[in-house]
C-alpha cells in the first residue's frame, strides 16, 4: 500500500516541497486573508461582520503568511492548518471543523510523485481548496491536493452551489476532488486519483486507483443524489453563520472565544448565550433539561481545552483539568445541552458536537481515546417511528482512538475499537465493536479499508 513517509527516511524519497520558505498560495485571490497573529481570530482583523472569517484561538496555524483564507470561512478549535512545506489556500464559505488537519505538502516517494503528476498536481501547488467545501470533524488533507476547484456543475444542483463534503474522519491524500462531490465518513482518496463531479465515496473505502473512482461497480463509489446536495448546501450555511457569530462574540470581548466560554446564541433555536457548568447533576437519558441543574457556570479563558456553551459536566473543574487533553473541543454552539458524566480520560483532539434536538447524554467513567468524534445527529418528530433524538453513551464505556459515535446508543461497559464507526446503531451493554468495524443501522458493513 502506498503510504506517506516521513521526511528524511531515505534516498527513495522525493521531497516535493521545500521545507524552508514557502511562496504565497498559488490559488490565493486578491481578497484572501493570511491568518497572521494580527488577523486572528478575525481575518482580516477589520473585516465587516458579514464577510469576516473566524479562526478560533484554539486552532493551530503554521506559517500563516503562506495561508490564504477567503471570506466567511470558519476554522474551528483544534483544527490545524500547516503551510510550512507548501501553501494552503481556502476559498470563501468553506469550513474547517474540529480537529481537521490541512498540511500543505509532505515528502513523497517516486511512485507517488509520478501519480501526482498524472493527476495534474505539481509539488509547489500545496493545498488549494475552493469555495463552499465542508471539512467535517477529523478530516485530513495532505498536499499537494486540490478540492472543489475544477469539475462541472450537476443537474442535481440547479442553484449551481457546487459544494464538496469531506465527511467525518476522511482523508484526501494527494488527490483532486472536483466540485459536486461527497466523501463519506472515514473514506480516503489516495495519491493521483481524481474524483469527478457527481461522485460520492462510500464509508470507509480506500480509493487508490482511477478505475475505482470512476466505476461504481467496483464497490467504492456511487453517484451523487439530491439528498447529498441538500445536506452539503445546509452544512455550508450553518458554518457561514458560525464565522459571523463567533466574530461578533470576539469583538464584544476576546475572552469569550477562549477556553471555557459561551456559545454565540442569537439563533432561533438557541437565542441565549450559555456557559459550561461543572459538577452538574447527572440526568436520566430522557428529554434533556435546558439547564445544567446544580452546576456552577464557569468561564475560563485561560483553559487550554475549548468548551463552548451549555456542556454540563458531572466532574469538578479540578477533575476536568486532569481528564481533558488540551486540544479537546466540546462545542454546544447550536442549542442543546450536553450531559457529560465523569470522564476517566478524554484524549487529544477528541470532539463532542451536536445541535438543538440532537444533544448528547454521556455516562460516568467513560474513556475517550485520541481523535474520537462523538456527534449528535438526526431529528425525528415525537410519535414518529424511531425518532432517536439522542446520542447516549452509558457508564464505563471505552471508545478507541479515532472512532466515531454518531447518532447512536452505546450500552454500559461496551467497548468501541480503534477507528470504528458506530452510526444509527445500538451497541448492547458489554458489546464490542472491533477495530475499524463499520456499524450502520445495527449491521456491519465491513471495515475501514485503510
Amino acid at each position, binding site marked *: 500500500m502506498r503510504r506517506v513517509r516521513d521526511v528524511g527516511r531515505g534516498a527513495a524519497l522525493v521531497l516535493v516541497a521545500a521545507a524552508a520558505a514557502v511562496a504565497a498560495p498559488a490559488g490565493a485571490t486578491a481578497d484572501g486573508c493570511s491568518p497572521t497573529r494580527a488577523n486572528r481570530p478575525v481575518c482580516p482583523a477589520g473585516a465587516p461582520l458579514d464577510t469576516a472569517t473566524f479562526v478560533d484561538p484554539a486552532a493551530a496555524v503554521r506559517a500563516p503568511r503562506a495561508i490564504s483564507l477567503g471570506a466567511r470561512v470558519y476554522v474551528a478549535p483544534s483544527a490545524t492548518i500547516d503551510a510550512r512545506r507548501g501553501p494552503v489556500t481556502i476559498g470563501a464559505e468553506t469550513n474547517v471543523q474540529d480537529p481537521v488537519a490541512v498540511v500543505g505538502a509532505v515528502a513523497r516517494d517516486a511512485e507517488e510523485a509520478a501519480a501526482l503528476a498524472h493527476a495534474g498536481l505539481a509539488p509547489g501547488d500545496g493545498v488549494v481548496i475552493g469555495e463552499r467545501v465542508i471539512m467535517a470533524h477529523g478530516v485530513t488533507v495532505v498536499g499537494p491536493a486540490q478540492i472543489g476547484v475544477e469539475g462541472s456543475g450537476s443537474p442535481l444542483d440547479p442553484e449551481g452551489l457546487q459544494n464538496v463534503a469531506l465527511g467525518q474522519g476522511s482523508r484526501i491524500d494527494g488527490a483532486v476532488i472536483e466540485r459536486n462531490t461527497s466523501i463519506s465518513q472515514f473514506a480516503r482518496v489516495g495519491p493521483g486519483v481524481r474524483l469527478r463531479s457527481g461522485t460520492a465515496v462510500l464509508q470507509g473505502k480506500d480509493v487508490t486507483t482511477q478505475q475505482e473512482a470512476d466505476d461504481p461497480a467496483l464497490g467504492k463509489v*456511487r453517484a451523487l443524489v439530491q439528498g447529498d446536495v441538500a*445536506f452539503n448546501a*445546509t*452544512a455550508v450555511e450553518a458554518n457561514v453563520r458560525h464565522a459571523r457569530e463567533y466574530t461578533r462574540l470576539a469583538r464584544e470581548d476576546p475572552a469569550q472565544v477562549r477556553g471555557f466560554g459561551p456559545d454565540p446564541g442569537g439563533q432561533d433555536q438557541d437565542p441565549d448565550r450559555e456557559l459550561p457548568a461543572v459538577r452538574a447533576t447527572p440526568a436520566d437519558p430522557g428529554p434533556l433539561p435546558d439547564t445544567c441543574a446544580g452546576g456552577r457556570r464557569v468561564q475560563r479563558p485561560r483553559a487550554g481545552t475549548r468548551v463552548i456553551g451549555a456542556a454540563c459536566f458531572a466532574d469538578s473543574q479540578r477533575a476536568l483539568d486532569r481528564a481533558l487533553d488540551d486540544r479537546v473541543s466540546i462545542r454546544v454552539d447550536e442549542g442543546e445541552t450536553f450531559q457529560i458524566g465523569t470522564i476517566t480520560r478524554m484524549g487529544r483532539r477528541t470532539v463532542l458536537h451536536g445541535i438543538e434536538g440532537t444533544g448528547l447524554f454521556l455516562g460516568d467513567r467513560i474513556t475517550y481515546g485520541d481523535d474520537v468524534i462523538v456527534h449528535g445527529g438526526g431529528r425525528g*418528530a415525537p410519535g414518529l417511528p424511531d425518532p432517536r433524538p439522542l446520542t447516549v453513551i452509558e457508564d464505563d464505556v471505552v471508545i478507541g482512538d479515532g472512532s466515531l459515535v454518531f447518532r447512536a446508543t452505546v450500552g454500559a461497559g461496551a467497548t468501541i475499537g480503534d477507528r470504528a464507526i458506530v452510526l444509527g446503531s445500538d451497541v448492547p451493554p458489554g458489546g464490542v465493536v472491533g477495530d475499524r468495524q463499520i456499524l450502520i443501522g445495527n449491521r456491519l458493513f465491513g471495515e475501514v479499508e485503510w
Partner: protein
Amino acid sequence: MVARLAALLLAAALTGCAAAPSTAPGAPQRDRPPGGFAAVLHDETGSRSGGLVTWTTSWELTWEEVAGAASYAVWYATPEGDGTRAHELDAPRLRLSVATGTTTPADRAVRRDQELTVTAAQLSVRVAARFPDGELGPASPWLPVGQALP
C-alpha cells in the same frame, strides 16, 4: 441547450412540482403548521452487465394542504446546524433521490438500508405554509429525510 433543458426539468423536480402556483382553497389557516405527513420510498432498478443492477431510491414527503397557502417553504437541517434559506414548493410535496448504487441484486437491499440510515442521521426537513402576502405560517416539526412515515 439539451443540458440546460435537463437542468430546468430537474430543478422543477427538486422543487416538487412544475405546475403554476395556486392558492389552496378555504379561509387561510395562518396559525396551523402543516400536518398529515406521509413519506414513502420509491425504488427504481435497471440492469447492468456482469449480473449487476443499478438502482436509485427516492423519498417522497407529502402533507395536507394548508387553506389559503400560496406555496410552502422548506428548510433542511444537518448535524452541523440548520439551514436558513427556504426552498419554495408550489405544492405540498417534496421528492428527493436519497440512495443509489450499482451492486449485485443480493446486496441491493443492504446497501439501500445503509444509505437510508445515514441520510436519516444527517438530514432533516420541516415545512411551513406561505400565504399570498408573503407571510409564513408556523413550521412543522423536523422530519428525518429517508424514513418512511408513518
